[in-house]
């Protein structure tokens, strides 16, 4: 009985913690961030299972976790508000060839990282980028301008948002 409550508590705590940390923590991990994430199960496993290392207790913990993951995904699918609460929204980093500095600052994404993603997409100049979006799972999507569309003027490369 206690295992179910402990898994629920740890799940909610991690959900809130990871949400506060921001989207970049899910994907583009530095070695230190990777070590931090790997340490989490080491730190919480004893708190969940306590001294009970029976197979039954382990299966109860896993079934509880699977149930919580399924319920979360179900709620996220059916409610935009819950989806926002759990996963947040995709965040625009570049809009029509211009950085959105407020979002770069808040998500701690450097222009170099955007350029790195642009190069992977075969783009070399910011003006070629229609959208650069930090997805909810932490990956950066680059959408270039269509051939018919006109990139913005080169002298204005960033816009400020609050």
């Amino acid at each position: 009985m206690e295992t179910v409550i402990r898994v629920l508590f740890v799940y909610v705590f991690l959900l809130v913690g990871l949400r506060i940390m921001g989207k970049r923590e899910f994907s583009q991990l530095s070695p230190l961030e990777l070590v931090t994430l790997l340490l989490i199960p080491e730190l919480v496993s004893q708190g969940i299972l306590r001294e009970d290392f029976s197979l039954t207790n382990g299966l109860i913990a896993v079934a509880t976790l699977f149930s919580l993951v399924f319920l979360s995904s179900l709620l996220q699918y059916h409610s935009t508000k819950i989806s926002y609460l759990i996963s947040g929204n995709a965040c625009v980093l570049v809009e029509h060839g211009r950085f959105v500095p407020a979002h770069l600052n808040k998500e701690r994404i450097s222009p170099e990282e955007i350029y790195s993603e642009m190069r992977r997409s075969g783009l070399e100049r910011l003006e070629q980028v229609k959208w650069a979006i930090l997805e909810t799972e932490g990956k950066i999507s680059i959408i270039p301008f269509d051939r018919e569309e006109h990139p913005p003027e080169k002298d204005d490369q960033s816009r400020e948002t609050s």
Partner: protein
Amino acid sequence: MNEDDDAPRPPQPPPVDKKLQFYRLQWVGIPLLMLIPILALLNVFGVSWETAVTTSNTLTVQIKYPSRDRYQMSNALEIHIENNSQEAIPTIIVSLDAEYVTSFSTVTFYPELDEIINGQYQVKLENVQAGETRLVVVEIQGKAYGRHKGTITISTPEEEVAVPIHTTIIP
């Protein structure tokens, strides 16, 4: 996090009619999966206790034991023996079946085990006064899966009381 109302938004997808729809495997599997934590909350897989009380001419014996235990979990079996006669009893012998005891690992007796005779683990209680209650505690740790039956026998020079007990150890 993106809470700004005036922040630029990427192209949004068109709305979709959202319904509760699952694959056949999920209709069966997900309720079964969710049943496990629900049953666990109702303590179906947890440790459960039973109490057996027996009264004879001179003794009242109350035994609290785990009727369901988990593998490698430590629990204590408590035997309360009350001398309800008007006289002191010089010796009370508490015996546990070896068959039951060997189903557990790390078995510790309080007070200490005196001897093992004829497949019986025996603890002697001496000079039990009239109206006095003595406690024998046996700490046990589940080892062998399955249901284990045993008998706790309390003997005085005049009589013998036998209490059957059982413990199911789940993996």
